[in-house]
C-alpha cells in the first residue's frame, strides 16, 4: 500500500492535482493539537507518579531521622540544607547491615551461576540429543515453572535440617537453584533450538564430542539468552524475601530479611530502612540502566514464574 502512494505522484501528468486525504479543517486541527497537549500532560503526570515513590525513598534516606518524622521528604526540595549522608555513614558502620548486604551477594552469585550452568547442560540435552520421553520431560519441567514456592518450603526445611544446611547460605542457595532451574531450562532450550542444525552437525563431523559442541558452538552463540536468564535469576534471588525468611537465620540473612526486621518500628527506624532499602535496590537499578535490553527480555521471560 505504502509503495503505491509513494509512486503515484511521480507518474502524475502535468497540470493534474495529486489526490490525497482532504485537508483537515481548522476545527479538527485544533482538536488534534489539544489532544496532543492533553496526551503530553498525561504522560508527564504518569511519569511523575511512577517516579515519586522511589524518589521519595531516595530523598528520605538522605535526611535525618528528626527531619523525616517532622516533615515530608518533599520539603527537602525547597530546603536542600536538609540533605546529609549521615544515614549512609551510620549504615555502613552497622555491622549487621553490612553483613546482610554481603550475605545477599553470597547468596545471589552462586544461585545465578549454578542455575545458568546446570540449566544450560540440561537445556542442551533437551534441545539436541535424542532420547525417549524427551518431550514429556520438557513439558513436565515447563509445568514446574509456575509452582508457588510455598508448596515446597516445609519439606525442604525438614530435609535441610536433616542434612545440616538449614539456616545456612547453602540451603538458601540450594532452594533458589532448584526453583530457578525449570525456567532456565525452558528459556535456554528454546533458544538452543534456534541454532541451525548444520552448525552442530559440522562440529560433530569434525569429531567433536557433545561437550565440545556444547561449549564451542552452542554457548558462544547463546550470549543474549544466557545474559537475559542470568539477569532474571539474579533479580529474583536478590529481591527475594520469602525464601530467606524460611531458610536463613539472622546471621546468614540477606538485606531484605534484615530490613524486614527493622520494619516493625518503621518511623523510628527509617534512618536505617531508608538507606538500606535504597542500597539494596541500587544494584538492580544499575543492572536495569546498564543492560536494558537483556533486562527487559529477562523480566518478560521470567514474568510467568
Amino acid at each position: 500500500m505504502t509503495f503505491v502512494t509513494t509512486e503515484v505522484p511521480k507518474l502524475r501528468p502535468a497540470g493534474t492535482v495529486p489526490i490525497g486525504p482532504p485537508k483537515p479543517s481548522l476545527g479538527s486541527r485544533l482538536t488534534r493539537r489539544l489532544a496532543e497537549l492533553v496526551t503530553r500532560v498525561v504522560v508527564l503526570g504518569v511519569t511523575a507518579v511512577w517516579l515519586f515513590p522511589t524518589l521519595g525513598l531516595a530523598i528520605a534516606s538522605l535526611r535525618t531521622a528528626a527531619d523525616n518524622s517532622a516533615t515530608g521528604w518533599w520539603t527537602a526540595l525547597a530546603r536542600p540544607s536538609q540533605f546529609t549522608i549521615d544515614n549512609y555513614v551510620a549504615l555502613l558502620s552497622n555491622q549487621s547491615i553490612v553483613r546482610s548486604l554481603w550475605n545477599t551477594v553470597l547468596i545471589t552469585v552462586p544461585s545465578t551461576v549454578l542455575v545458568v550452568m546446570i540449566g544450560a547442560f540440561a537445556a542442551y540435552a533437551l534441545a539436541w540429543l535424542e532420547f525417549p520421553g524427551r518431550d514429556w520431560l520438557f513439558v513436565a519441567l515447563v509445568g514446574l515453572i509456575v509452582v508457588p514456592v510455598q508448596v515446597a518450603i516445609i519439606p525442604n526445611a525438614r530435609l535441610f535440617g536433616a542434612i545440616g544446611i538449614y539456616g545456612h547460605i547453602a540451603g538458601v542457595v540450594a532452594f533458589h537453584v532448584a526453583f530457578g532451574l525449570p525456567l532456565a531450562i525452558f528459556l535456554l532450550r528454546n533458544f538452543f533450538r534456534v541454532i541451525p542444525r548444520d552448525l552442530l552437525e559440522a562440529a560433530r563431523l569434525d569429531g567433536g564430542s557433545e561437550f565440545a559442541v556444547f561449549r564451542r558452538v552452542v554457548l558462544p552463540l547463546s550470549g543474549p539468552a544466557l545474559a537475559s536468564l542470568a539477569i532474571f535469576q539474579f533479580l529474583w534471588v536478590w529481591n527475594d524475601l520469602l525464601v530467606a525468611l524460611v531458610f536463613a537465620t539472622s546471621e546468614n540473612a540477606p538485606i531484605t530479611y534484615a530490613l524486614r526486621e527493622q520494619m516493625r518500628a518503621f518511623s523510628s527506624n527509617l534512618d536505617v530502612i531508608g538507606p538500606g532499602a535504597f542500597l539494596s535496590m541500587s544494584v538492580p537499578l544499575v543492572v536495569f540502566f546498564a543492560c536494558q535490553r537483556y533486562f527487559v527480555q529477562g523480566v518478560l521471560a521470567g514474568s510467568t514464574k
Partner: protein
Amino acid sequence: MRTMVGRRARLDRRTAALFLAPALLIVCLLVAYPIVQTFWMSLHSADGSRFVGLANYVDMFTSPDTRTAITNNAIWVVVAPTVVTVLGLMFAVLTERVRLVNAFRMALFMPMAISFLAAGVSFRLVYDEDPNRGLLNAMMVAVHDTFRPPAPYPGATVREDSGLLKGADGAIIAGPVQAGEPVSLPLVGIPVAHLPKDAAAAAAAPAGPGVRGTVWRDFLRGGGGTPGAVDAGEVGLPGVTVQVLRGGEVVAETRTDQHGRFAVPELAGGGYSVRLAAGNFTEPFRGLTWLGPGLVTPALIGSYIWVWAGFAMVVISAGLSSIPREAVESARIDGASEWQILRRITVPLVRPVLIVVAVTLVINVLKVFDLVLVLAPESAQAEANVLGLEMYHASFTQLNTGLGSALAVLLFLLVLPGMAWRAWLLRRNGRGWDGR
C-alpha cells in the same frame, strides 16, 4: 549405517543422562518430591503425627483468619490483573503517539527491577497517615483545602459555666439576644499556634444599634482574669463566621474583625440568637488512613499496580507494533474517533496479548506475599492477609504444618490452570516457540 545410527543414539542417551542428571536430581529432590510430600502432610495433624484426612481443608475454609485470606486473594485476583492490564493498554497506546517515550517507558518499567521490600518501604512513605509525612495524604489535603478552606479554630469550645450552648453539630449558640446589647462569646481550647497572625487584643463591642458582640479567646497564660469577661491580654478571634438567627431562620451572617468584634447594625428588636457555625470549629481534613484495616487491601493493590504496570505496557506495546498500520490509518481517514479506533480495531487485534498479560498477572497475584508482609503495618496484617502469607504464618509462626501444607496445596491448585495453560500454549505453538 544402521550401526552408526544405533551407536549415535546410544551415545546420545548416555550424554543426555549425563547432561540432565544434575538438573533432574535437584528438581526432583527439591521441587517435585516436596510437592508430593506437601500433599501428604496436608492430610496430617499440626505436628504431622496423626492422619486427619481432610480436616485441615475444613479448617481452612471455616477459620476466620484463612477466610479473610481467601477473600482478599479473590479481591486481588479480580482487581489487580484487570487494572494493570487496562493501564498497560492505555500506557502502550500513549507511547505510540508521544515523542521522547523512552523516559516514560523507563520510569514505568523501573519498579520491575526493585524488590517488593523496597517497593513496600517506598509506599510506606506514600501512604503515611500523617499529611505532614505521607505524600498521598499531603496531596489530598492540599486539594481538599483549596476547595474547602480549613476551619480557623478547630476544636475550640466553651466553658461549662459560660451560658453558651454547644449544639449537637458543634455550633456554639448564644441567646436570646436583644439588638443594642453586646453579646459575649468567650471561647477556650484554642492553642496559641492556631491563632491567626492578625489577631489583636480582644475588645468589647461598643454599644450601638443592631446585634453586636465579641468572640475572643477567654484564656490568659498563667491563669488570672475573669472567665466570661474581656481581660487585658486576651486575644480576639478574627475571621469567625457569625450567624444571627430569629425563629430558627438565619437572618444575617457576618465575620469578626481582628479584635473579635462583629456587628449587624440593621437588625432591631429582640428574640435573636447568635450562632457560631460548626464550620468554624471542625477538625481539619487529614486524608485517609490508607494502611488502616478498611483500606489496606486497596492500598496494597495500588502499590502492586505501580510495580507491574510497566510490564503490561511493554508486552502490550510489542503487540501493538504488530498491528497493521493500514487498518488504523484507513479507519482514521474514514473519520473514526480515537476511542472508536481503540475499541473496534486496537483492542480486538491485541486481545490475545491482553489475555496473556492478564493470565500471567493472575498467576503472579495468587502468590503475592512480600508486599503484604512488608507494607501492611502490624496492626493491619490480619485484615490484609493473603494465602501466601497465611501459609507462611501457619507453618512457621504457629508451627501447624498440616494447615500450612493445606494452604500450600490450595495455592498450588489455584495456579494449576495457569500451569495447564502454559503447557497448552507450548503444544499449540510447538513450532512457534523455537522458530521452526
